[in-house]
């Protein structure tokens, strides 16, 4: 009886009696969710354009953040470090296209997937070699990102908003809008959708696959850099981050592998869901719910709606 009470009544009583705390939890979840969404976005971009599930997306986030911090530590001003890090992502995109993808045209998807696993080990190895294995902290202030916090009086209590979190949400929003515009309104965007649809046909109208791949990987690189900065600002920059990046998987299952809105909504659902669960129900199941909540949710989805929330239906329009 008490167990039932603890599951079905108590959490809601708590939510109702302390709405400010509920809001705080939701906000935390929301911010985590945007970051999940950003990582998922990186996967979606590449998956759409080349049909490859890019295993290395997580490590790209780490790699991007590491190069940014690395450049800064080497004595370069923060803004220049940012540009250089972008440059690294660009070079990486071109490199991947030239050295890996170009030789794998018309190969089976699983082979391409294996190639990205190889790529991720390569990036881990070279990253450790160049930047060392130790944990670094993000150069948040140096990049001009806000660090303070605001206290809001809401619902008879207070909610604390970290400024960096607000910045993360805003930047994520801008990035998504820019990508949507890029996809839907520009020639390259159109070419990109064309490639996503049919490689052969795209070739026949003179779309250069090589160029498109480089562009897409670069776009994924930019997303990775943004994610790396935001995530790094909230915790640290280390290779452990790639584990977090795996959270993108359930997000993708929820949202559909090819849908940008799906990635965003999936990210938010998982971010907020796992926080809520952790806080209100976590005690019942021993803590650490955050670690597995997303995967269980994904499993349920796989059973009942394998195409994801926005599978197929949406891609037609995106």
């Amino acid at each position, binding site marked *: 009886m008490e167990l039932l009470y603890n599951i079905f009544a108590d959490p809601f009583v708590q939510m109702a009696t302390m709405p400010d705390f509920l809001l705080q939890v939701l906000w935390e979840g929301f911010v985590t969710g945007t970051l999940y969404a950003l990582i998922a976005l990186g996967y979606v971009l590449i998956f759409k354009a080349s049909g490859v599930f890019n295993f290395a997306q997580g490590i790209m986030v780490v790699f991007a953040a590491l190069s940014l911090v690395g450049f800064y530590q080497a004595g370069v001003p923060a803004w220049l470090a940012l540009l250089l890090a972008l440059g690294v992502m660009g070079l990486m995109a071109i490199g991947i296209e030239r050295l890996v993808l170009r030789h794998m045209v018309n190969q089976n998807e699983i082979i391409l997937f294996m190639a990205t696993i190889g790529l991720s080990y390569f990036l881990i190895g070279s990253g450790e070699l160049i930047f060392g294995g130790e944990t670094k902290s993000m150069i948040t202030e140096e990049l001009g990102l806000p660090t303070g916090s605001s206290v809001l009086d809401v619902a008879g209590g207070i909610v604390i908003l970290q400024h960096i979190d607000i910045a993360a949400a805003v930047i994520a929003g801008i990035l998504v809008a820019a990508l949507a*515009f*890029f996809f839907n*309104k*520009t*020639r*390259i965007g*159109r*070419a990109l*959708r*064309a490639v*996503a*649809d*049919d490689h*052969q*046909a*795209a*070739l*026949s*109208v*003179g*779309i*250069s*696959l090589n160029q498109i791949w480089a562009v897409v990987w670069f776009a994924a690189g930019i997303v990775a850099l943004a994610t790396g900065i935001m995530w790094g600002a909230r915790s640290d920059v280390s290779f452990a981050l790639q584990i977090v990046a795996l959270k993108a998987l359930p997000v993708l299952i929820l949202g559909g592998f090819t849908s940008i809105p799906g990635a965003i909504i999936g990210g938010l659902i998982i971010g907020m869901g796992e926080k809520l669960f952790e806080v209100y129900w976590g005690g019942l199941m021993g803590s650490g719910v955050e670690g597995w909540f997303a995967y269980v949710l994904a499993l349920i989805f796989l059973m009942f709606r394998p195409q994801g929330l926005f599978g197929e239906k949406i*891609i*037609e*329009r*995106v």
Partner: protein
Amino acid sequence: MMDQGVEGYVTEDGRQIGGVLMALQNITLRFGGVVALRDISFDIREGEIRAIIGPNGAGKTSMLNVINGFYHPQEGQITFGGKTRSRMRPYEAAKQGISRTFQNVALFTGMTTLDNIMAGRTLKMHRNFFWQMLRHGPALEEEIEHRRKVEEIIDFLEIEHIRRTPVGQLPYGLQKRVELGRALAAEPSLLLLDEPMAGMNVEEKEDMSRFILDVNDQLGTTIALIEHDMGVVMDLADRVVVLDYGKKIADGLPSEVQNDQAVIDAYLGVPH
């Protein structure tokens, strides 16, 4: 066989056909040990409708894929646009003015008719990425100009009503038309059609024939097409190449080819 001199020739319906646009010389294509095309030579002349026919497995599609660079022949040369080469990449072929359609329709199914045909103009677009992002100035003007061209094609092919429909939702016959539109969007000097009437009913075939003739007549586009349906080919084509088991067995005006014993045997399946 007919006279194929440099001056060109006169078609059966009395049109003067010009000089050589593309010449294929001694093309041999092998997949591993299998010979798909064996020592094939023929030319495509400016302004003509050239058909490549043959029974199933004769190597027609391989031939088309060689022309547009999907396959690279082991032997032989292709002369096109004044340049002779042994191999071409599809991207380069497109750049040089070769457009094509596919036997099983290869459209960008998630995109609208408009976007599909617009994608066909990829190579005609020049403004750089930066301007495009701004959608301003020259890029906007260029976009408008391209849109105008695309609208002309839409009008030409009578597909106004499906302008905004994702092509995946269209019936097959219309998809074929959109695909033709996309190929035309590049304003090709050579248009390759891979079985343009495959899977169509009589009415759709008549429509498609009319469009092909109109393209050739009004836009002056040189067309090379593969077709299975002999009747259609004889009506459409100015000259016909017949392949059988990867070899060229005849080449000439439809009337000549029709009466050629080797062709009749090939189609009736006389053993070799």
